[in-house]
């Protein structure tokens, strides 16, 4: 049995995963990310997560995504870690700042309303119960009082996350990333604007949110023991680690493009032999993207030119080298990271990790069963049914 706040965190982490799955199902150009999985973080802020809870939610989200996508030991994980941690810190402090400011102005402006808002801390209205506090705080933060809304918070988060990711990715994509920076930042502003609007809509309309913010909810529900069983570390894992690690080290420290390519091919074959899912379109895209970014810093013999851009020999090789390094780290991590339902998974059976996976499973199963046409309604219905299934109260 996990504590209330842990259950809450697990549920929201599962929602993050669910949102990233939803994002995958929306067709879009490959290099643009909508960042839907940050939506539940915003909702979590709104539903009154404390700082510690929020941080652990973010960490759990990052590690869950690392495990499910199998990117735990790759560059993508470092990127997502840097981006998520920085953006969530910014979002948290922005949110607190905005709430603080609005409380302050409210207290000064309208004395009748002030105690209601302040009572979320319980100073000015000590007689109101826990439930009342929650409700009034909720009501106080409703749509009409925010002069800045979720749009601002999500934009700030996305902007910071993009900047951090650009600076981090400079180390393994080269200087050419800076050329793309304005484009990435611009796309980030647009997508986070949309995300903010959607979150606002969700917070206003959702019955699911009403349900889980009921003070007694996490005390009573979502207490079902988890299904997955685990065992300890097997020797197979150590062999895998040595084999994959050798290939990866060779790939990282060699200067020759060919050797690097061969090593990443080896790792790819390992993945195929151990029946890991490898999708080839993203792999091709990684190569194309990395080489294209390397093109922005011309080096070596000029082969031909497209407008301003010179296509040069050495930068093609450099780009290939970089993409092979990135790919081999991806394959290595996919090869090594256990599947969630595998027996050799290193987690305790009743950990927050499996709890989260359990919620995620219910939510995604329910999502594909739904026939509802209205998207907002469908999401809401899915979530409601899923939390009902996850609770053993019924």
């Amino acid at each position, binding site marked *: 049995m996990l504590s209330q706040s842990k259950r809450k965190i697990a549920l929201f982490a599962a929602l993050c995963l669910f949102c990233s799955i939803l994002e995958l199902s929306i067709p879009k150009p490959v290099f643009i990310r909508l960042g839907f999985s940050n939506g539940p973080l915003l909702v979590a802020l709104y539903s009154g997560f404390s700082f510690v809870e929020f941080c652990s939610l973010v960490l759990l989200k990052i590690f869950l995504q690392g495990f499910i996508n199998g990117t735990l030991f790759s560059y993508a994980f470092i990127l997502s870690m840097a981006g998520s941690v920085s953006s969530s810190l910014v979002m948290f402090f922005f949110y607190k700042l905005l709430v603080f400011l609005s409380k302050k102005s409210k207290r000064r402006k309208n004395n009748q309303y002030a105690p209601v808002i302040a009572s979320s801390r319980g100073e000015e209205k000590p007689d109101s119960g826990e439930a009342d506090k929650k409700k009034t705080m909720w009501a106080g933060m409703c749509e009409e009082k925010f002069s*800045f809304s979720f749009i601002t918070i999500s934009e700030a988060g996305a902007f910071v996350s993009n900047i951090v990711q650009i600076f981090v990715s400079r180390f393994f994509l080269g200087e050419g990333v800076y050329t793309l920076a*304005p484009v990435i930042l611009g796309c980030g502003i647009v997508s986070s604007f949309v995300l903010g609007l959607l979150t606002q809509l969700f917070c206003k309309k959702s019955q699911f949110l009403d349900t889980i913010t009921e003070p007694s909810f996490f005390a009573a529900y979502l207490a079902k023991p988890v299904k997955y069983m685990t065992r300890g570390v097997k020797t197979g894992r150590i062999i895998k680690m040595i084999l994959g690690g050798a290939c990866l080290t060779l790939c990282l420290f060699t200067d020759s493009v060919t050797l690097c390519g061969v090593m990443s091919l080896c790792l790819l074959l390992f993945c195929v032999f151990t029946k890991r899912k490898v999708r080839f379109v993203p792999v091709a895209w990684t190569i194309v993207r990395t080489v294209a970014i390397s093109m922005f810093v011309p080096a070596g013999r000029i082969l031909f030119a497209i407008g301003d851009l010179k296509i040069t020999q050495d930068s093609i090789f450099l780009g290939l080298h970089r993409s092979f390094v990135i790919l081999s780290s991806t394959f290595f991590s996919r090869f090594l990271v256990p599947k969630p339902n595998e027996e050799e998974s290193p987690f305790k059976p009743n950990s927050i990790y499996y709890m989260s996976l359990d919620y995620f499973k219910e939510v995604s199963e329910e999502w594909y069963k739904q026939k509802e046409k209205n998207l907002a309604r469908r999401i809401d219905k899915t979530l409601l049914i899923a939390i009902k299934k996850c609770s053993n109260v019924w």
Partner: protein
Amino acid sequence: MLFLSLFFCFIEKNRLKNTKLHRKLFGYYALQRNVPRVLFQKSAVYDTVHSDGRILMNEKEYGLKLKITLGDVLFTLFLICLTVYAAIRYVENGKGAYVRITTPKGVYVYPLESNEEYTFDGLHGKTTIRVKGGEVMFLESACPNKTCLSKGGISEAGEFNACLPNGISVHILSRDSKGLMHFSTAGEDVDAVSI
């Protein structure tokens, strides 16, 4: 953050004015109605989900009624300005100059910041050029007179050095210079100099 806090101070100051416009923009209308809104009229869980899986959805509107506040618009504009500023800054500050090396076998381009020695095949033999610390110089050349070696290093955009007998010339180009955009074909530079 400094900018933002200044901005908030500005808003606070304006709120004291309590004009109709400000009340409208920052949403005081609702507060003056005196009635706190309470969202939870009933226990949502018991009413919405039945034990047999049926769901009673409230007749809430699920339509798109969105509200974009003034603060959001300002913040978005602020971010867009930042992005544009970063872009302009990048273009202007592009000190990153390039070295263009023209040889009989083709044109090569390297960033001036790189720290390496390159060897090229010329008409007479091999020529080694070193790019180090923003300076380009000929190290060795298989030419008879060795005038290219005597010039030493060049580091400013627009400077030029060549080994004419071997057919190899070195140009330093700034990032936005036309030279990089319309690079000449092999040999042209050398002809121009020798004339």
